[in-house]
């Protein structure tokens, strides 16, 4: 049995880092030199996808897929997200356009968002800014008529990434209940 979770978000949001933080296997990454320094100053970026795994003794596994953040690779997003249990949208809130990126990615993965199978991880938020960032997210969600779970997190911290996964698990459990299995 394999369950798939996808990590989405703009370049530099921490997708590769988050997968590496919880994967049982060394993550498979397709990093290449970043030629688009206008989007992010990091040296390398994902060009196909990242892959990690959480495996259990009984052979079950959770596949973790990270999409490439650059929009020119958006053609691959529906392919990677097909059959996913849910999506984790990561955002770097130190970027000035993070709210725009939020709307863009929700729009791009609208079917996951509509079913509640998307959670948002907000990275690089200073303690004093949390109130403001919450307000922006709440306004965006109300405009989109979605109440997506969002969490302040550090993609390097496995516990933070696990909290995002747990939100997806609870949503999936609710699906079982709502559909009467």
């Amino acid at each position, binding site marked *: 049995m394999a369950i798939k979770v996808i990590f989405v978000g703009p370049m530099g949001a921490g997708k590769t880092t988050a997968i590496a933080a919880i994967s049982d296997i060394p993550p498979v990454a397709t990093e290449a030199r970043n030629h688009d320094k206008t989007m992010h100053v990091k040296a390398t970026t994902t060009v196909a996808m990242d892959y990690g795994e959480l495996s259990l003794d009984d052979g079950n596994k959770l596949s973790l897929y990270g999409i490439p953040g650059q929009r020119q690779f958006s053609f691959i997003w529906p392919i990677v997200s097909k059959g996913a249990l849910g999506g984790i949208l990561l955002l770097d809130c130190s970027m000035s356009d993070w709210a725009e990126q939020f709307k863009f990615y929700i729009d791009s993965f609208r079917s996951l968002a509509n079913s509640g199978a998307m959670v948002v991880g907000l990275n690089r938020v200073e303690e004093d800014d949390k109130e403001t960032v919450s307000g922006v997210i709440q306004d965006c969600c109300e405009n989109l008529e979605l109440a997506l779970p969002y969490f302040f997190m550090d993609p390097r911290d496995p516990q933070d990434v696990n*909290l995002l996964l747990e939100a997806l698990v609870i949503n999936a459990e609710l699906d079982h*209940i709502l559909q009467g299995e």
Partner: protein
Amino acid sequence: MYSIKSYGFGPQESDVIKKQVRLISSRTDLPWVYEGEGLDGNIVLAKQHVDVLPGAKLVIVGTVSPADAKACAAVLEYPIRIMKFLELLEKFAPKSALSTAQAVAKILEDRNAPDLVLLCNQVLVCFKNGNSKVYIEKGGKKDIIEAVSKTSASAITPKNKIPVKDTFSWSSCISSKTLLWSLARREIGYAKSNWSTDKPYKLASWPQVNEWEPNPQIFKLATLYSRQSVTVSEAAKACQLEEDQVKSFLHACATSGISVKASEVHETALKGVRELQNKQSLNWLRKKINSYFGLVNGN
């Protein structure tokens, strides 16, 4: 202002009533004033039965027949004793429509308002709108919640402001959202009477429950109410909680600034609601990710 009027009293008697009200009003939560003769006050004092205007409460002063006693709101002896008069005003004071948590939310809603220091359960508490934090004179975070929760809603008002020097040092602080959440979650009685069991509700945005109250059932409630309209009774079944707890959750969300929308459209289709912990299919995953809430095997 809450008005007291009299009917059928002479000028000297009216003057006595006026002085008594002035004295009493300094001891009541509400600002009562005497407004002379008339039948349209919040309270009308009369020597015998009289038809007061709608909304006014008739208080007969003096001896009354049993029939008149039934027709009026209360009876006071003549001459009016000041302590009895005080008791009467407290009894007839319109109940505050706000709970303590809502009163705190009200004073914190304007981020540009000046800092407000109040005496809450014998300790000073400072509500700082600028940084959305609440400070206490002595003690920790729990003491802040304890002190404010023991303060009545009517006492949480800028009118009761206590002046302190800028150099005053505060012992500890709590975020205003955490305080509002904690206060509202304690107000089960208020929530019980203000939220419907059968009306579907939906949250317009996600409450930060992982920070305000890390609890698996509350997390499930937040997830459920965030995705669709659901009634209190259905949510209680789905999340294995008492209905009062669900109502208190909704009250806490609303108090903490999360818009809770009542819906006429019943979206939910909770076919055969069963306990979440019986759903074993995802338990292996939960076990693997070492649940944030310490949930193992769905427990």
